[in-house]
């Protein structure tokens, strides 16, 4: 479920959208904002479609309602930390109540 390849400094994890509104603009914006705090780069993947996790527009085009599972792949020196906070953001429903 959760594997880290140290030689490439890469973290991969499956994440689930838990908030009822799905991955809308505000939630996508939070992902982009989070990414700015790290040097590593995030790629999100759903049904074979890969998008740049630093682009709000690209994330939106994934069109993820509640319950969607996606793969997050982070490459770079602080990929592990980034993955931890990113998972937490998903767990906490992007700070939304429902």
């Amino acid at each position, binding site marked *: 479920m959760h594997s880290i390849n140290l030689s490439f400094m890469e973290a991969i994890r499956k994440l689930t959208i838990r908030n009822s509104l799905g*991955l809308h*603009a505000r939630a996508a914006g939070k992902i982009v904002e989070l990414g700015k705090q790290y040097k590593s780069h995030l790629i999100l993947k759903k049904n074979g479609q890969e998008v740049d996790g630093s682009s*709000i*527009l*690209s994330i939106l085009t994934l*069109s993820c*309602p509640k319950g969607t599972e996606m793969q997050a792949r982070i490459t770079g020196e602080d990929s592990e930390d980034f993955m931890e906070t990113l998972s937490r953001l998903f767990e906490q429903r992007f700070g939304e109540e429902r």
Partner: protein
Amino acid sequence: MIEDSSAQTKTLQGIPVHAGIVIGKAHLVDRSRVKILYQYIVNDGKIEEEIERFKDSIKAVEDQLIALKNGMPERVKDHSFIFDSHLMMLKDSMFRDATIKKIRNEKINAEWAVKKSLEEIREVFGQIEDDYIRDRISDVENVTERILRTLSGDTQQSLAEINQRVIIVAHDLSPADTTELNIGKVKGFITDMGGKTSHTAIIAQALEIPAVVGLKSATQLVQDGDFLIVDGTTGNVIINPDDQAILHAQENQLKFEKYQSSIVRLSHLPAETLDGFKIAVSGNIEFLEEVAAVKGNGGEGIGLYRTEFLYLRNKGFPSEEELFEDYREVAEIINPFPVRIRTLDLGGDKFASKLDISKELNPALGLRGIRFCLKEPEIFKSQLRSILRASIYGKIELMFPMVSGLQELLDAKEILNDVKNDLDFRSIEYDRDMKIGIMIEVPAAVAVADVLARHVDFFSIGTNDLIQYSLAIDRVNEHVAYMYQPFHPAILRMLKFTVNAAKTEDIPVSLCGEMAGDPLCIAILLCLGFDSLSMNARAIPLVKKIIRATSMPQARMDFENVMSLNTAREVRSYVLEHIRSQFPELEERGYI
């Protein structure tokens, strides 16, 4: 002499919405989208310069968005995310990097590259299944429009910046535009869009400014600074008139003002028919400043205080204190007469973009009026608290807009009771006998008027919306505006039914739509049995004059005939003929 072709005289015909003649310079407000875009090839040596130009425009728009975001008041800061997401889109690789790449690889100008990027994003978004996310393309469009405006050197004009007395020429004026207007600087309005009851028309009447709407192509034919004659009486607009036309207009202007002042002089006399039948005549207002005009024109109270204005200012939402001060002042000035405060009727064409409510396909049928207030109880309670607190400073009555049935009314009253209990708990004084009424403007409310009448202290019929909803006419759509017919037998029957329901429960019933100020409608409204009529201040003197010249037995005979007619056209020509013979000068002056 060579004729200057740019100053060619043209005449346009539109829908007159507020009588009066005005002569002055045009101020063209271009609120339409950036239309003309050219593609051109950029020389190799200039490409980096073109990219810089694009980057500069991003920086400029970034500054604009940050300023807008910081300008939001605390209470709605929660919605400032809309600007955050615009800021992100601005710098998004799918837009920014892709555009730079196009300028570099295809050697095209920044504008064209921006347009191409937008098209690409639009295509990707078009395939998204989720409606909400797909609609975010409108955010991208908003951002690219700002960029294009900046690139073309067109800074967005602010209506607040007008510093010369002008005639506003616009495609359409949104409620947000009109809240920004520097009222003292506007002599008149003309717009391409709109009908007799559009927002522009209502504003023009409230401000007593001559206006013509529905001109279709005014913004294309009028140049900024052109000389205009706007006749809000006939709907005629002359662009670059010759000397003779100006002289003629000035003469008419003088005649109009003379007549108006002659009837204003008599407006303090009571609204009483020849045979002693009395009715109350009051004023509709949108801002505190209009109270003086209502009093000056002989209004006996404020029959409708529309409270949206304070909510639509660019400064953002008003605080409870601001609202309280405003309501208190109105109550004090109009005392001993009452003021009927209508609770917030946001939504519909008064779009609530500030609340980040998603765009509605059909706003007139959407989240507005009491529905909106019940959904946003905190906003509603804050207004109710300020109204209650102000109620001890004069005679305030409260009314809820857009009620469609009993449940909504009960829900609203329950919230009102919560607020009262809270004030009691905090020992804050308010008028415990404050009258509570509803606007009757949804056809469903007419059908259950007998039920509703048992739960309120008064009815006020809002005919503008009632006509719109009953006849299925979008009042801002100029193609169907002609079908907006107060004399439609369906409307007259609904009025009659509602008045009877009110009489059965012995509660007063008033009318506060445009009909109340229409000289043609007065006799009918008298016979229907309304207790009061509320209209814009300027209409009061003439309405009083007509009432004072009416004899009820004669009017009742005419009324019987009117109610037996089957089409709006027949009714209209019947009453028109009567008023023509009684007041021949009205037609000449353009009141009818």
